[in-house]
């Protein structure tokens, strides 16, 4: 079967546009159908994917803007296969969740949902640096409107802060990317931003240093990591639940994905140069996120800070510049997305049962009357804290093994984060589900449609815990290729010699 990535890419946007012309009540179902179709397509792609081949599959490669050397180049390999799947999986329950609830201005809301999915898929599938940035920045537009238009509290301030933070990073990345493209062009050569071309060309090491730094700035803001997370508290408090699940579960992965897709293979010298700094930032994020997650009162913020810690683990795994670490990071990118989406949806359900209260003080004692909800919550909690038997456990262990190899001290400090995760997640679960019944809590079990939204996700978490090899065997080949050049440098070798030519495959 032939798979056209462009169809997957633009299907959600098309559904959103169709929804915009349909009658008011129909828009939601159009977009939901679009996301389901994308999921079906993604599953077909996984089934069809040739895990033995290392290079890009289902490639689309056309001229887009010749003058600027920008190509419309899409492709899927082991690295982004599961990111595409994660996007496809995450959008279905979130759209369903929103569809079964009454939305103000539904046409616009679901149009933005569709646009957002297209943008995220585009960022994951782009194989051209400029195209990646186009989608990376485009993601902000729907999220800006979704948070500002349908959020709660001081939503305008929150969404403005979110956009300015993120765009500061990504516009600097834009300048850096253009500089990379222009400076890498040999005399008389054609300007190109295609990643496979950029990997063959090289820019001087000194230039790589600041370019990598600007890229890292954009990705760290997006992730978010420790010193650049200033937008997190306000944004997480104001964002509507289904949007927040996507923001935290999927969008945060685009940043760290960028490291593996662009920074490490294109600028190995620069990446290796900052390795120590980035690891320190990652370890700081793990500790800072864990400690703050423990001390938060707002349920959303507990998960928000736990995400900072989790993303710290992922960055640690990437910049350990070690095969196991990178594999762990890739696995963890998928895992974290899969647990955070149901976690936020469950938080939404919980808040609905306490009259909108999201403070731990107002919650409590829900499990008794809501056994199914409690069970779902328990499973995701255990997965988040990386209980042995969950895929998160495998992911974190791989990350830690990877860092023990070379960066033992950092690895040991980071493993404290694993312990802290257990502390704050179990605290969260207890305070919400057990303890004294909160003053405004009217507990009831999960409804049929909400169950349909969350239960499949939890089932995927369980399945992945049983058989993580399913992901590992499809991703490891490309993952190793992506870090090969930087890894060789870290081990004291030559970058260009070590990088296997991707064209050859």
């Amino acid at each position, binding site marked *: 079967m032939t798979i056209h990535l462009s169809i997957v890419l633009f299907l959600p946007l098309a559904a959103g546009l169709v929804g915009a012309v349909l009658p008011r009540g129909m828009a939601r179902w159009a977009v939901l159908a679009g996301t389901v179709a994308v999921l079906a397509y993604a599953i077909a792609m996984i089934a069809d994917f040739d895990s033995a081949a290392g290079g890009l599959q289902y490639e689309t490669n056309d001229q887009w*803007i*010749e*003058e*600027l050397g920008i190509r419309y180049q899409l492709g899927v390999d082991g690295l982004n296969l599961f990111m595409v799947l994660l996007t496809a999986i995450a959008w279905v329950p979130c759209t369903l969740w929103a569809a079964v609830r009454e939305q103000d*201005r539904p046409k616009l809301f679901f149009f933005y949902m569709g646009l957002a999915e297209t943008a995220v898929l585009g960022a994951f599938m782009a194989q051209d640096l*400029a195209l990646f*940035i*186009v*989608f990376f*920045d*485009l993601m*902000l*537009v729907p999220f*800006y*409107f979704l948070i*500002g*238009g349908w959020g709660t509290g001081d*939503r*305008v301030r929150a*969404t*403005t802060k979110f*956009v*300015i933070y993120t*765009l*500061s990073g990504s*516009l*600097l990345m*834009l*300048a850096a990317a*253009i*500089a990379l*493209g*222009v*400076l890498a062009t040999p005399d008389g050569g054609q*300007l190109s931003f295609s990643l496979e071309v950029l990997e063959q060309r090289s820019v001087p090491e000194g230039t790589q240093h600041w370019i990598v730094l600007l890229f890292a700035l954009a990705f760290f803001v997006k992730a978010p990591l420790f010193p650049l997370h200033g937008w997190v508290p306000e944004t997480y408090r104001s964002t509507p639940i289904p949007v927040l699940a996507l923001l935290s579960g999927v969008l945060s992965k685009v940043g760290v994905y960028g490291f593996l897709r662009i920074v490490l293979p294109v600028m190995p010298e620069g990446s290796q140069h900052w390795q120590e700094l980035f690891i320190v930032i990652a370890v700081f994020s793990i500790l800072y996120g864990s400690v703050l997650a423990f001390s938060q009162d707002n349920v959303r913020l507990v998960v928000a800070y736990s995400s900072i810690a989790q993303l710290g683990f992922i960055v640690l795994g990437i910049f350990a510049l070690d095969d196991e670490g990178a594999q762990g990071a890739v696995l963890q990118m998928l895992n974290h997305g899969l647990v955070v989406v149901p976690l936020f949806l469950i938080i939404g359900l919980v808040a609905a049962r306490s009259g909108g209260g999201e403070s731990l003080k107002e919650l409590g004692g829900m499990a008794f009357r809501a056994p199914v909800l409690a069970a779902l919550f328990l499973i995701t909690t255990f997965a988040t804290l990386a209980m042995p038997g969950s895929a998160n456990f495998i992911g974190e262990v791989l990350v830690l093994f990877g860092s023990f190899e070379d960066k033992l001290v950092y690895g040991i400090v980071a493993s404290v984060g694993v312990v802290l995760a257990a502390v704050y997640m179990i605290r969260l679960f207890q305070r919400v589900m057990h303890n004294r019944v909160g003053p405004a809590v009217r507990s009831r079990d999960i409804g049929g449609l909400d169950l349909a939204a969350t239960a499949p996700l939890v089932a995927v978490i369980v399945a992945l815990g049983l058989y993580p090899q399913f992901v590992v065997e499809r991703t490891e080949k490309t993952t190793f290729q992506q870090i090969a050049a930087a890894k060789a440098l870290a081990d004291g070798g030559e970058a260009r010699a070590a990088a296997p030519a991707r064209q050859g495959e």
Partner: protein
Amino acid sequence: MIDVAGIAASEVKAPVIDYKELSPLLALAGGMVVVLMVGLLRPRFVRRALVPALSAGALLIAIGLTIWIWEPGDRQPIIEGALSVDALALGISVLFYVAGLVTIVLSLRANAPSEAGHGEYHALLLGSIAGMVVLAQAENLVTLFIGIELLSIPLYVLCATELRQRVSLESGLKYLVVGSVGSATLLYGLAMIYGATGSMQFGGIGSAIGGDELSATDPLLLTGIALAATGLAFKASVAPFHQWTPDVYQGAPTPITTFMAVATKAAAFAVFLRLFGQALGLAQLEWAPALAVLATVTIVMGNVGAIAQRSLKRMLAWSGVAQAGYLLAGVIVASELGARATAFYLAVYLLMNVTAFAVVVARERVSERGDDLASFEGLGTSQPWLAWPMTIAMLSLAGFPATAGFIGKFYLIDAAVAGDYTWLGIVIVIGSVVSLGYYLRVVAVMWMGRFEIEMPGPARRLVKPAAGWSPEADALAQPEVAAIAILFAAATIVFGIYPDPLFDLARDVGSSLSSLR
């Protein structure tokens, strides 16, 4: 070394005139006379409909003739030694014509033409456009200056055409005073350049700088360049010569503001490209660092100034200052790529700003709060056909992808980096980050509820209301303004996704400065 013989010769011999190449300019001049005469007739129909129609007709004919004589490549002399035509002149002049057409449409229901007389108003507009065309086609310093004056003097009058509004008169006077200072400075600078190089012709200046007799660091030449740059900076509202911009933009009738924002800026940058790229290109190492500093100051001041504004016209004026700073980047690198990027951005700038100003025109005529941010509250629900174009314009000005503004900025940064001005590229993006603060505020006010900051006093409406008693009436009141907004917003998106036609245009324009790197 002064070419006395050459001047003497041109006095006795009548210059050769190529009427085919001159035809767009003739169409404008003819239109100007006809419009002025027809405007004298009394019937209401003539004044309200026929005069604008004739003016628009003149512009359409000029566009048609431009397409007819379009030919990329070398310069064709029109009037020997005075005017000549190339793709740069033609391409940029299409922007003037389009801006003129937009202004005519936006003026249909405006107060200003009835106050000042329809014939005069439209004739002045055509005259100003003719000045811009002369400017873009100028071949020597004298025609350049004539062009500048021909473009400016009608604008001084047009700014003051709301005769009964104090702010409009103030705007006209302010523009007159500041504009005259700018013109004088420019003239002084041009005289010095002539003194240093001994030639009025751009080509002669270029070869004098390239020759052995004159060093590029000659003090007289550098002083001349500095003064000329200052004079042009006044016209292009480049900091620190931009202080007039917000006041003049705010006071002038909004259709005229639109015209000034897009067409005057395009004209000023056409001269920047011509004078600095072509005539002074070889001295680039001397003037580029100074202009780069100027660009940086402009970007910073424009963006910071815009943040504090609640009048949309003032905000767009400040944003125009910042955008002038971005545009300068394309001039500074003095490369063909830079010229292309500048031309491209000018076209994009026209699309975005016309969209934004059209929405402002539509709102200020129906809202009691005039062009204050408060009159855009909740526009997303009440009038989405205005809110969407405004949103697109704001996102494009801020440089979001899938809009033409993104590609334009990409191109400019590309040119800056390729011309060894990477830091200027970074300044551009930092400026864009700051600009989010005010562009997104407009979007938030339209889509996300009320504007929180209370007004010190009620904003006054300065224009005659076209509607304003109900949203339905507002919607029907001025369809042509909404149509302009929607059309240009759609173009902003289309060129953001498929920019090739604009690139072709920009490439032709750039090719006429082929003497550059």
